[in-house]
């Protein structure tokens, strides 16, 4: 599905966020990307969903070289990729139905988009998507009146009506409570399995990545540290991946830190189940 050849992104001339990354993702795969914050994971995803332009290397989407696309062809390629964000990135003042149907914009003409604000188009699709994420009764609710978890479900419904071939989820559960985090990750993995859509997910939580994904990529300093099935991910690998991170970040990732060290976590101490 995706093929990256020495993909590179540099900010402000010297901050290398993605450093000559090469990898391949097959159609229908579920891949988790883990790593400390500042590793370049979000930049990688913004390259993959064609928001940013790579500064070097090539990005293939199927047989299409999408790294240099622009205009109509770029929009057509973007339509094939659905993105879910940590902050939901919904329009707070629009009602849920319009936020969900925003996923159809790539398929609609400008006038149909305007008309839909008065008379929602493809209402059945929006309703079906909301049913699938478990909040069909919120169709006409105002988006900013929903809870964080419900808003994330609306964002998932937006991706569902978009009917993309690939779902990219950038830290989709970083701002929801742990129970809900499991539910949302499971939901996305199930959608990917049942529909054959490729799923790539950035995760803060090592536990979620190892529990739900058949393939886990460790990302650090703009490079791939390891790329393997969860059973082959060792404690040493995780220790190296997260070496030198702060205590609070380690706790967030679910890695225990020694009590006497306020700042640095040395050990590969991740508990295996």
């Amino acid at each position, binding site marked *: 599905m995706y093929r990256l050849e020495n993909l590179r992104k540099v900010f402000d001339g010297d901050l290398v966020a993605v450093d000559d990354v090469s990898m391949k993702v097959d159609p229908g795969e579920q891949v988790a990307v883990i790593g400390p914050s500042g590793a370049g994971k979000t930049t990688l995803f913004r390259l993959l*969903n064609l928001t940013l332009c790579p500064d070097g290397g090539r990005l293939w989407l199927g047989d299409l070289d999408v790294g240099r696309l*622009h205009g109509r062809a*770029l929009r057509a390629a*973007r339509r094939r990729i*659905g993105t879910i964000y940590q902050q939901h990135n919904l329009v707070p003042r629009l009602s849920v139905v319009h936020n969900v149907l*925003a996923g159809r914009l790539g398929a609609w003409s400008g006038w149909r988009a305007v008309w839909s604000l008065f008379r929602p188009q493809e209402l059945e699709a929006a309703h079906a998507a909301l049913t699938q994420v478990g909040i069909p009764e919120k169709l006409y609710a105002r988006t900013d009146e929903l809870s964080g978890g419900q808003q994330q479900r609306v*964002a998932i419904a937006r991706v569902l009506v978009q009917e993309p071939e690939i779902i990219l989820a950038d830290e989709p559960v970083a701002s929801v409570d742990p129970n809900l985090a499991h539910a949302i990750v499971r939901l996305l993995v199930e959608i990917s399995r049942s529909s054959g859509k490729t799923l790539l997910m950035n995760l803060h939580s090592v536990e979620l990545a190892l529990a739900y994904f058949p393939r886990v990529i460790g990302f650090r*300093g703009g490079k791939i540290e390891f790329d393997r099935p969860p059973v082959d991910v060792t404690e040493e690998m995780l220790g190296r991946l997260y070496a*030198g991170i702060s205590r609070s970040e380690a706790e967030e990732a679910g890695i225990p830190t020694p009590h006497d060290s306020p700042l640095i976590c040395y050990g590969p101490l991740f508990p295996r189940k």
Partner: protein
Amino acid sequence: MPRVQSSIADAHSVVGRQPRRWFPLAMAAAVVTLVWWSARGAEVDLPLLLRDGPQAMLSYAGKLFPPDLRPEFLLDTAFGALETLAISIMGSLLATLLAFGAVFFASANLMYAGVLFEREAAGRVRRGLRLSLYLGAKSLLNLLRTIPDIVWATVFVFAVGLGPFPGVLALGVHNGGVLGKLFGEVLENVDRRPIEALQATGATRFQILIYGILPQALPQFLAYALYRWEVNIRAAAMLGLVGAGGLGQRIHIAISLFLEHQLLTLLLAIYVIVTAVDYLSAYLRRLII
């Protein structure tokens, strides 16, 4: 690794930050100097005000009483007040339309910069065209705004004659510039995360505008337009002084012909309509936001 480096850098900056005790003193001295200089420049003369001022003001105020409450004059005043109200409404409407028409061109994040243009591959000509459109719209709004409404009113009185219409044009044009600046700030401060999300679905810029930007901006546009309406009702009363209709024109006549009792009635009328519009506008703005 980067985190460790940054914490070392933080430690350095903490050590390097000396307490700057001279800074507040210097600021205070600068403010005092500025106030003194302004007072000199504006020829502020408190003794002069206190010596002759109170006497003169009191005697003029005494001449104003009682207000002229003859029915035919009250009717004329009410007509003037309604005319002022009408000028302020039409002027605000014209200003809103002007600003709305120009602001999208005068907004950098819609014309050439930011997340919408990350993957822009426009040629040099199109880029230049966009930039000059942006600069053109921006300087047009600046020009409209920097020329005071009273000057615009004088110009329009020359152009279309005496009456309320030049007042409408003057308010509309000047406040079009003011609202253009305010609208522009709204547009440059919209949350760009939904914009990025919409773009990633393959939406066009027009679609992003109506789904991602306008829902965020329109309520604030309306709130600013209502706020300018409050300013405009006061301005509409003043513009009459140069012949642009409404209460102001009657005030001008009352002052020139020493009709003090009528003047008081007119001032009371201004008080009533300005207060009424303030309350109405504040109420409507609360409904929107």
